[in-house]
């Protein structure tokens, strides 16, 4: 029995190792090539490690390119992703509280309707949404990237599931003590739903940071753009500058990677949370 178990462990390890080599290669290639001088890349043939280690690609790509201002794009993305995350946390926790704890007419029908709209393909609303953003005067403004992405129903569903698991006795005893709904929400429910809110925050931040199609439509001013659509412009400029392009890509992926490193526990938890959703 013991032998058989360690046998399957070895097979699994070898398989994963093989896959891991394939999976890690593009990442290591990106890191190492971003430190190579462009001259070496173009004249010395391909080497895995840099022959000379230099920072020049980073300096140039971050600060010395006014038609692809990467540092500015990065800051724009930080503002957009952080704002959207905060907005989502507020409206989603309020709404989930409403749909689980409060009584009002048509509550269940309304929630079912919201869930059903998740099946609507979002491609249909792309064009009118642009018109709405335009008539609000939001083209090239952060709001265009922050607000429309915050209306998703799935987050409410997740938080609502989690809230349903909190015993009603908690709020009832507070109610007996005379607490208002809002006090129950702030003092009792909110501290208890922190785990699921962390999950929502992580996904919202990552989603906002990585959003590509929509911001590429609502931003045409190069200085106002977030980094993800910005990289498409940059790709055109650095088509033949391997080191520069890869340094830019690495800068763009750093925030979500770091976030994941520090919150890996929550990420994994969260995905099993959403896997509770049965087809």
């Amino acid at each position: 029995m013991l032998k058989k178990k360690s046998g399957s462990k070895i097979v699994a390890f070898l398989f994963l190792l093989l896959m891991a080599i394939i999976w890690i290669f593009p990442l290591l290639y990106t890191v190492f090539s971003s430190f190579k001088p462009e001259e070496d890349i173009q004249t010395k043939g391909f080497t895995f490690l840099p022959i000379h280690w230099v920072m020049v690609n980073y300096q140039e790509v971050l600060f010395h390119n006014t038609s692809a201002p990467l540092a500015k794009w990065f800051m724009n993305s930080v503002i957009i992703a952080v704002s959207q995350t905060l907005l989502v946390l507020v409206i989603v926790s309020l709404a989930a509280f409403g749909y689980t704890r409060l009584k009002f007419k048509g509550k269940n029908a309304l929630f079912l309707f919201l869930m059903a709209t998740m099946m609507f393909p979002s491609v249909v609303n792309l064009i009118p949404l642009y018109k709405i953003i335009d008539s609000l005067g939001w083209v090239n403004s952060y709001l265009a990237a922050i607000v429309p992405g915050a209306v998703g129903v799935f987050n409410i569903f997740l938080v609502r599931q989690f809230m349903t698991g909190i015993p009603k006795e908690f709020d009832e005893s507070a109610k007996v003590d005379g607490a208002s709904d809002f006090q129950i929400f702030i003092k009792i429910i909110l501290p208890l739903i922190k785990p699921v809110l962390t999950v929502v925050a992580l996904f919202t931040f990552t989603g906002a940071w990585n959003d590509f199609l929509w911001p590429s439509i609502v931003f045409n001013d190069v200085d106002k753009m977030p980094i993800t659509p910005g990289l498409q412009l940059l790709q055109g400029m650095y088509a033949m500058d391997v080191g520069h392009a890869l340094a830019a890509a690495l800068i763009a992926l750093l925030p979500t990677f770091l976030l994941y490193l520090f919150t890996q526990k929550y990420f994994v938890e969260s995905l099993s949370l959403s896997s509770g959703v049965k087809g």
Partner: protein
Amino acid sequence: MMNTQLNEVTVSPTLVKKPVKKRHWNLSPYLYIGPHLILFLIFFLAPTIYGIYISFTNWDLVNKADFVGLANYKEILFNHESTFYDQLHTGLFNTFKFVLFTVPACVVVPLLLAAGLHAKPVGKNIFQALFYAPTLISVSAVMIIWSMLFNVTYGPITSYFHTETNWVGVQPYAWITLVIVTVWWCIGGNMVIYQAALNGISKDLYEAASIDGAGSIQKFFKITLPSMKNQLLYRIVITTVAQFNVYGQPLMLTKGGPTSTTTVLLMYIRGNAFGTGQSIAGIASAMAVILGLCIMVVAAIQFFFLRERN
């Protein structure tokens, strides 16, 4: 009202520090669901309905739209001489191809990885983090990385395999490239969900099967797969819907080429509505509605077909 007044007097000081403010904060239920509902109406529901409406108009994004009935649909579906007819057919054909090529791999590869991780080998956590990592990268950064990897002049793939293959510029390599990149990029989510599903299967089932003399392959097909049926079905549908919305990969990696063989419908929709020159939002909306219908129909077929068999 009377009740709340009464309660205010006996309110517990630990819960409510300023009982005077209490009534002010007692919001009606609609104030809780309202913020989301209003934004949802303005930024999702209204544009979705309006998007369907303008597919029946000749809107150009600027001027007033005239109702033209089914003219847009007739043009893109049946008018063989129209460029939009070509666009719809090429775009939809390539989108379906992309779905067909990527979905099986994006469902099965993470299943193998999850099964491997489930055996708890040395370095399990590192492996898991590594396979999940690409999912965290934006499509544009992934495409920059892979277009450099496949670069004919300076790329490592050319150098290691001693080929002169122009990966992104010649078929069938352009499709192979797109599939490889997509699988590398997006297996993480499915993998973690499969891991959770595997953890949920009772060990007793496997032990009972062992006693009955079942081998590991038999166990996989008779116990593991049926036990995670729900998660698999859910992930197949989700993955399919996601791949139908393909846009960034062909846009940045193959530029839709060679000669439009990888141009997907979303690229045409975007080009017609927001490209340079006169916007043809009406036609683009009709294309979007058709794409949306395809997504819903395919998801429904998958759902019923996979349900039925069990």
